[in-house]
């Protein structure tokens, strides 16, 4: 059991992989739902983990308002008098289109049009507690919960309509929010059934949900909910929110990480009109009537910082090989281990014809969400409201309550649909800073981080070192697999290769930089190392890399995506052109199976780059992905394409440069992210498995690209690159 303090002290990396119950389990305030929502019917969805306890107790059957509410609630659905359906969930929308996925799932189950369902998301005063939107959990966990609620709602409403129409419930069906009997002689609308009701229903665990083969709205490419608001610029991100009397804030940042404050002189800043300087320990911030003045005032604060000497990129590998000595090291999952070793590495190596030992590394990279951290904080008496883009609204509420020593009921966090996160917005530092400024100013304050602040004061995808020792027989049978991951994490560390002797471990280290979750977590690093190494083994025994994989993989789902990708790519059908190369890789994580083929070209240096270096261009990528039943084909394809494009950065050129407690490339001009000109031809193959429950898809499609490209570079040049990014300045050979 991990206590809350330990949880918080640990690095952000994959903390959600703990799969613990939340450390908090608040007594659910027995709010009067009808009072809160007005007339209509509310369906409450007990949390999945609470349902088991509820089982056997049955429904209390008591009336609205008196019903005993479960403490632990996943969601609720309100059907108002006009027939509108409002779903309340603590999940948030950060570009992964979960708003659309959840909306179409409810509409599908309830048999109502998509546009009659509205989602209220990520508002700690309005929505039930949620751990956060991460780990590709929304689709596998929240969709079934909401479907249960919608199914219960449908059955209840049918019974009510049947009573109103004086027909048997079995004679009624719902089509497009209308109840119809067999010959359509009797009809009622959803609004007519909900009118005048005052009901709160707790849905039973036993309710059956519609299976994928019977889906009507789910499984289709419903367009992004609110798309028109985005293309017109009307959607209000946190950055866009303005409150009455709002001031603008700016934080005076330390000169380096871990710097301590020696002295501060605020006179010049405070002399500026309308400027207020706030100092509280090492926190220094200013507020002003406009952004420009706030920035000038922050620059006018004279501060002396003392910073200790700190390591840089050149010392990173040695540093990460040393075991962690503090609680910040290591990811939560597996507690520093991997899996239990199987067989004997010594025996496995003895049985091998070829043995191989190699080291792979990955650098720190930045999420660089296009909307940097932002928050608008407003105090009304002792109640604090903060708008902020976060993947963990309830986690941010906790941070705020602790920072200001106030009860959580006095804090409301509202997360507008956010300008992306990729695992990078789990923390609430900007919210805390804005709230501190607002408290001092006595007015609402908006604080928006600059791009440089986002690059510097957020957190990074962990760097890592991976050592692999392996053995293979000449016929391609893998005999031994010893795998050590230092620091980057244990996600995706497990193998689908049937290797009788394996020893797979994750070792926490002391990270010199603040590190945390990143789309796919360590699965990218672990797949890069594993799939590069498998390619090396295939070449060691002169076998086709696809053939060696298929020889050692029994898992049908993984074989299916491998074969689907190979077929679409034309693997083995032709040889690459001169200076071109082909590469393949595969993997699985979080219920998703992926296989990736890449074609790269080695081209003469472009004018802008180092003239001595050749350029690696990714020409074509084919990726097959399977995550169970497909909920929205277009959005799934979009996620896969986006993952591939994002992966290009980490594979080829993204790398945080640091030294002496400073980030040395905190700008898009220095930290290159993929652009239009980096775009390869991308072909996505969706493998739809209607017989398997849907898993999330925002992360796993990112893991295949880097090893496929590394293997393609080897195919083209004979040069094996074992460090990500592979070619930040082109090929130096």
């Amino acid at each position, binding site marked *: 059991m991990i206590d809350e303090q330990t949880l918080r002290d640990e690095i952000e990396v994959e903390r959600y992989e703990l799969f613990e119950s939340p450390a908090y389990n608040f007594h659910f305030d027995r709010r009067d739902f009808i009072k809160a929502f007005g007339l209509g019917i509310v369906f409450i969805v007990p949390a999945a983990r609470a349902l088991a306890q509820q089982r056997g107790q049955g429904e209390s059957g008591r009336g609205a308002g008196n019903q005993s509410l479960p403490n632990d609630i996943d969601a609720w659905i309100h059907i108002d008098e006009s027939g509108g359906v409002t779903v309340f969930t603590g999940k948030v929308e*950060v*570009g*992964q*289109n979960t708003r659309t996925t959840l909306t179409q799932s409810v509409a599908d189950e309830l048999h109502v049009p998509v546009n009659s369902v509205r989602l209220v998301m990520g508002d700690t005063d309005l929505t039930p507690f949620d751990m956060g939107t991460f780990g590709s959990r929304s689709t596998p966990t929240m969709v079934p919960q909401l479907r249960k609620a919608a199914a219960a709602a449908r059955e209840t409403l049918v019974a009510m309509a049947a009573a109103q129409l004086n027909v048997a419930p079995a004679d009624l069906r719902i089509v497009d929010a209308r109840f119809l009997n067999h010959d359509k002689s009797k009809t009622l609308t959803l609004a007519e059934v909900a009118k005048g009701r005052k009901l709160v229903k707790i849905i039973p665990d036993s309710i059956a949900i519609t299976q994928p083969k019977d889906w009507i709205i789910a499984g289709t*490419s419903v*367009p*992004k909910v609110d*798309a*028109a608001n*985005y*293309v*017109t*610029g*009307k*959607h*209000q*991100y946190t*950055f*866009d929110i*303005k409150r009455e009397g709002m001031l*603008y804030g700016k934080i005076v940042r330390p000169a380096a990480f871990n710097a301590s404050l020696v002295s501060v002189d605020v006179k010049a800043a405070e002399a500026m009109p309308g400027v207020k300087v706030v100092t509280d320990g090492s926190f220094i911030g200013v507020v002003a009537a*406009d*952004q*420009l003045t706030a920035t000038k005032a922050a620059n006018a604060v004279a501060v002396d910082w003392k910073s200790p000497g700190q390591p840089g990129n050149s010392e990173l590998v040695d540093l990460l090989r040393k075991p962690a000595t503090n609680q910040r090291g290591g990811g939560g999952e597996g507690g520093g281990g991997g899996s239990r070793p199987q067989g004997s590495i010594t025996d496995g190596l003895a049985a091998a014809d070829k043995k191989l030992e190699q080291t792979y590394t990955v650098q720190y990279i930045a999420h*660089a*969400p*296009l*909307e*940097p951290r932002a928050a608008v904080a407003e105090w009304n008496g002792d109640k604090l409201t903060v708008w902020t883009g976060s993947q963990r609204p309830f986690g941010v509420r906790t941070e705020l309550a602790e920072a200001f020593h106030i009860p959580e009921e006095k804090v409301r966090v509202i997360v507008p*649909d*956010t*300008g*992306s996160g*990729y695992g990078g917005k789990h923390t609430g530092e900007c919210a805390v800073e804005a709230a501190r400024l607002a408290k001092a100013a006595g007015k609402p304050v908006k604080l*928006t981080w*600059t*791009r440089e602040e986002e690059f510097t004061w957020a957190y990074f995808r962990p760097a890592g070192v991976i050592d692999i020792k392996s053995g293979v027989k000449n016929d391609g049978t893998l005999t031994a697999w010893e795998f050590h991951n230092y620091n980057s994490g244990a996600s995706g560390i497990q193998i689908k290769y049937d290797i009788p002797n394996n020893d797979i471990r994750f070792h926490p280290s002391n990270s010199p930089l603040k590190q945390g979750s990143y789309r796919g977590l360590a699965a990218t690093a672990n797949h890069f190392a594993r799939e590069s190494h498998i390619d090396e083994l295939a070449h060691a025994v002169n076998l086709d890399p696809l053939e060696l994989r298929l020889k050692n993989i029994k898992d049908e789902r993984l074989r299916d995506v491998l074969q689907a990708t190979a077929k679409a790519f034309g693997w083995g059908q032709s040889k690459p052109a001169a200076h071109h190369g082909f590469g393949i890789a595969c993997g699985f994580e979080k219920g998703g199976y992926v296989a990736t083929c890449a074609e790269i070209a080695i081209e003469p240096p472009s004018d802008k780059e180092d003239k001595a270096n050749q350029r690696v261009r990714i020409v074509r990528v084919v990726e097959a992905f399977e995550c169970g039943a497909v909920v929205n084909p*277009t*959005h799934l394809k*979009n*996620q896969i*394409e*986006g*993952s*591939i*494009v*994002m992966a290009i950065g980490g594979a080829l050129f993204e790398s945080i440069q640091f030294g002496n407690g400073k980030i040395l490339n905190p*700008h*898009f*001009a220095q930290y290159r*992210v*993929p*652009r*239009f*000109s980096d*775009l390869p031809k*991308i072909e996505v193959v969706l493998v739809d498995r209607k017989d398997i429950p849907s898993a999330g898809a925002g992360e796993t499609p990112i893991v295949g690209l880097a090893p496929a490209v590394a293997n393609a570079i080897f195919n083209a040049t004979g040069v094996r690159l074992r460090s990500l990014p592979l070619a930040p300045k082109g090929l130096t050979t």
Partner: protein
Amino acid sequence: MARVTSLNINGKRTTVDVDATASLLAVLRNDLALTGSKYGCGEGQCGACTVLIDGVATRSCITQVGRATGKQITTIEALEKDGKLHPLQEAFIKADAMQCAYCTSGMIMSASALLAKNPKPSREEIITGMNGNICRCGTYQRIIEAIQSVSGMQTAAGGARTDAQEVTS
């Protein structure tokens, strides 16, 4: 300190009172509540703040408002007319050319400038013309499709001088 008191925005003369060195983006967003143009980097590197100045795609974050006086400024807010979306806006929805959509305004403004200059751009010309705009979610392929789908259509947004109306903010 020099002040700017009047701007031509989306075909209307708009009264302001701002420091001439303030960024056009900050004035649009904070003083005029035109928040469709986004801050992404403040350094002209990501294109999220793109507006048209006399029809030319311009990074409003690094444009001092004083340099935009007397010129026609067009923002994303001007593209929808009488409740009807601009063809590029329709095309972005149809191609699902967005995820978090924070870059979308800038993408559409850059694309409209590109199409005004070159109504039928090739794929290579789109890539070159749009390369200053970052979509961190990686929807580039879909954005290219969206632009190609309106290629050849009448898509010019703003740029042409119109009779200014007096509007006070």
